[in-house]
Structures are given as C-alpha cells and as structure tokens.
C-alpha cells in the first residue's frame, strides 16, 4: 500500500508531531517503502494461530489493593517544564 501525503498528514496528526511540507514530501515515499516491505507478512498462513500475547508464559500477578507509594508531589513535579501551585501547568484550554 502506498502512503500518500494526505495519509502522512493524518498519521502525523494522530501522533501529535508537527510536520512541514518538506517533511511530508520526504516521509511519504519512505513510509511507503517500509510499509511495502512489511506487507510480505500477508503471505504467511496464520489461520490456525492466535496472536502472541506473552513471550514467556507468565501469570499476571495480583496484589492487595492498598496504597504502596505516594506523597511525593514535589518529586513528581521536579522535572516539569512548568509547574504552578503544585500542579503541572499547560496552556489555557478553556476560554
């Protein structure tokens, strides 16, 4: 399947990555090549297999539903580009 400029812009939007016109022009053939190459998987007969969900059979463990950490607000905010009044700060989203 060929990936056109419109598709590149759509997936860039989904991935929240701003792309310039020049980048779109470069990405369309690159992504087409890669997608074209991975399409060889379609020739494999997988009618009798389930999709793999675990590499090593392992049971998802349960633990008691209790608080095991927390109370470290300042540490969590320590690397934030903008933090105010004990919160992460982002551009205004509600007028």
């Amino acid at each position, binding site marked *: 399947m060929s990936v056109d400029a419109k598709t590149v812009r759509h997936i860039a939007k989904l991935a929240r990555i701003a792309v310039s016109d020049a980048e779109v022009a470069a990405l369309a053939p690159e992504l087409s090549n890669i997608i074209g190459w*991975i399409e060889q998987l379609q020739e494999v007969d997988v009618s009798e297999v389930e*999709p*793999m969900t675990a590499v090593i059979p392992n049971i998802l463990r349960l633990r008691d539903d209790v608080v095991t950490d927390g109370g470290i607000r300042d*540490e969590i905010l320590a690397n934030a*580009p903008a933090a105010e009044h004990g919160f992460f700060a*982002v551009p205004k989203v509600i007028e």
Partner: protein
Amino acid sequence: MTALTDLGVAQIRDGVAAGEFSARAVAEAYIANVEAGRGLNAFVVETPELALAAADAADKARASGELKPLSGVPLGIKDLFCTEGVQTTAGSRILEGYKPVYESHVSANLFAAGAGMLGKLNMDEFAMGSSNETSGFGPVLSPWRRNDGGNAALTPGGSSGGSASAVAARLAPGVTGTDTGGSIRQPAAFTGITGIKPTYGRCSRWGIVAFASSLDQAGPMARDVRDCAILLEAMAGFDPRDSTSLKLDVPAWEAGLAADVRGKRIGIPKEYRIDGVPAEIDAVWQQGIEWLRDAGAEIVEVSLPHTKYALPAYYIIAPAEASSNLARYDGVRYGLRVQPAQGGLDDMYEATRAAGFGAEVKRRIMIGTYVLSAGFYDAYFNQAQKVRALIARDFERVWAHCDLLLTPTAPSAAFGLGEKMADPIAMYLNDVFAVPASLAGLPAISVPAGLDAQGLPLGLQIIGKALDEQGVLNAALAFEERAGFTARAEAWW
C-alpha cells in the same frame, strides 16, 4: 605490570578482595581513560564522583571484611536506565536535562552489589537504531579502524553503541546494555566484545525508558563470558513493579560456568544462510561450528521456517509499541516543551514532539501509529502478532532436535558512519539474525569469533531455550576458549 584498565570485572573484584590494588586506584585509572576517550563520544554524562565514592566504599568494605559481589568494579550505564539525580536522556534531546528522582531496578541492583558508575553511555535515540547515528548527542565512534591505513570512522553498532565502544576501548570493564531487537548483540559483535540478552523477564524493565515493552530486555556487555555472567547475576531478579518480571530465583551463573558442551546438540538453522552475506561471515560461522564440534558438541542442521518473516514482523510490533510508549513525551511532565506563540495545548504537543524527536524516532512513531490506526490494525498488527507466535513455535519445535543454536550475530562487520543512513531498510537488515530470538524472548549471546580481512571483529550468536542462560553461557565459554580472541583496537583517540 598490567594496566588496571586491562583488568575485567572478575579480575578487579578478585584483586580488590585480595588487596592487590585498591578500588580507588581502579576507579582513577578508568576515569582517566574515560577522559582520554572523549573523542569516541561514548559517554553523554561522566560521573567520576560516583565511581570514586563507590570505590572508597569498597576499600572500606575490604578493611572491615564486608565486601559485596561487585565491590570495586566501576561500570558504565546505558543512558536508557533511569539514574537518580543523574541526567537520563535515552539519547534524545527531548529528555535533555531530565534528572530522574528514582533509580532503575537493574542499576539499583548493580549499585547495591557494590558497583560504581563512571557515567551514562550514549546510544541511538530511544534505542531506535543499529549504528548509534540516531543519537541526539552525536554518533559514537568505534575504537576499531580498518587495516587499510584509512581513518574512516566506523560505527560501534547500536543501539548500545556507547556501551560497546566503552568496553572495547577500555573506558569501562563492563557496562549495561538493552536489547529490543539486537541492540546488545550487534554492537558487541561489531566491537569484538561479549554481550548477552537474557530471557525476557529476567531483568526488570522498571526504570528503563520504554521503547517496545514486549521486547525490551536489559543485559550486560563486557570483555568475556565470565564477566557477563557476573554482571547478569547482579542485574537480574524479580521485581513486582514490572508485571512481566519473572518470579524466579537468579541462578548462580558464574559458579555454574563450565566450558563443556560434550553431548550438547548444537543446531545450525539453514534459514540463517541468506543471500548477500559476505563469505567471511559464512567462513567464521563454519569455523565456529568446527570449534564446538571439537569441544564435543554434536552439530545438527535444523530449520526455523518463519525466519524470513521475523524482521518485517518486528518492524510492525516494535514501532506499534513505541508509538504508544512515546506518547508520554508531551512537554508537560518532563523534558522539552516548545510553546508556539498563540498556540493551544495541541499545538504545544505537536511543536514539542517535532522539535524534540529525531528523524528515525518520528519515522517509527508514524509507522506504529499507521499500523495501529483504524482499519489497519488487523491487517498489520494482529497479523504480525500471529507471525510472531509462529516464530516462537519454530523455536519450540527446534528444541526437539537440539539444545542450542549457533548463528552469525550480524550480516556484516562494522560499517562506516553515514553508509546506511539514507536507507532505513538497509539499516534494519543489520538485525536480521538477532530479531528472531527477541521476538521469542529467548536468551542469546554474541561472542567474538575472529577478524575479517579488513581487521574488523566478527561475532557469532548462541541462542538457548527460555531460562537456559547457563547453557548459553557455558557454550559461549567453550567457544571463547577455542576462539582465543585477543585482538583489540589500537588506541588512536
């Protein structure tokens, strides 16, 4: 007298314990090499003060008779491991300046065992690359050069390229690496060192910056098999904070080492003989087969029929997981924020990610987003997960005929910087022999086997059954004894 930086992990540990030299002297010698080796660009951050503090603690521990398993051993830590208070970037500008407030489980294990940290090692951005050229902090150089008299800059491989270069150039006796689709084994092969990816789940992923969570696995890289066994023993172990961590005791791999493959059946998968691989790779593979036969192993030809589909399956699964994992870099909680004037929240996300991620990371996020998007999920992602199940089944079936597999690690020796950057698929093909074991979660080691005509190292890979790191290490040790690989890069840096 042997330079202290010629000593590996076991020799340092034993020498410090015996009082032959102080841990401080070892740390100082390695710190001097790290400084002298800056031209290789192997380290993103140097932490001599941490290496010295651990060394002083080791010397005190010796005096008081309280030595730990890695007392006196300074290590390099790949920049994918979160290190408390020390910048952790995963090779990306988007995390420049990020100082974790916690320590990864693996590095915490190493430090609790007495090891010190020389610094954080350069790598491909978010471990996406096979040459270290995608790093946001510039490519790492291999200490190796071709014997043609030229000074062409060669890649140490990737993504653990800083790790490989540091060990090969004697900037560290051992390092941590991570392997998602060959990122420990291929750089080990390119630089003439040893590196093992253990069974998926042996090492906790907690605190390792996530790339493709179903594949990511930490492992050691060092100069020989014994040193890898020692380091892996310290790194591994159950961790309830990683839901895929295996709740198993860590075997005493070092104590269990025996260079003995008598009676072992070594499988040679015929699908790993692929077109376009240099004759020298086949020759060194054949030599390896002879060495293991000479060591008493039985050599059997085997088949892993879905091998050719491993790489394309990997390039659906890994980018899909990456597109999800890397959604967290949004300019809000850590790292870079780019706020366009007049822009809203979505504009900030898009501008931040456009500025912070490099080209290969963007490419993989977009491929991952595409294969997971509405209408394509079944055709790509589910199909790849089914093919992955078939690849794992190939391995399960092959164990009826053999105990271990011997293959080349990479389809070539190290290449020059810039040679493959223009063609993503040519770069991806570097991991053609490494990816199947990653998809199946199996332990696999790369050991140096010899030099090619240009004087560059070639490695062979030994793959084992799940949880049989001991079998892998023992076969590698038998291999290592016969290979007698002592070549090292002449210092030019």
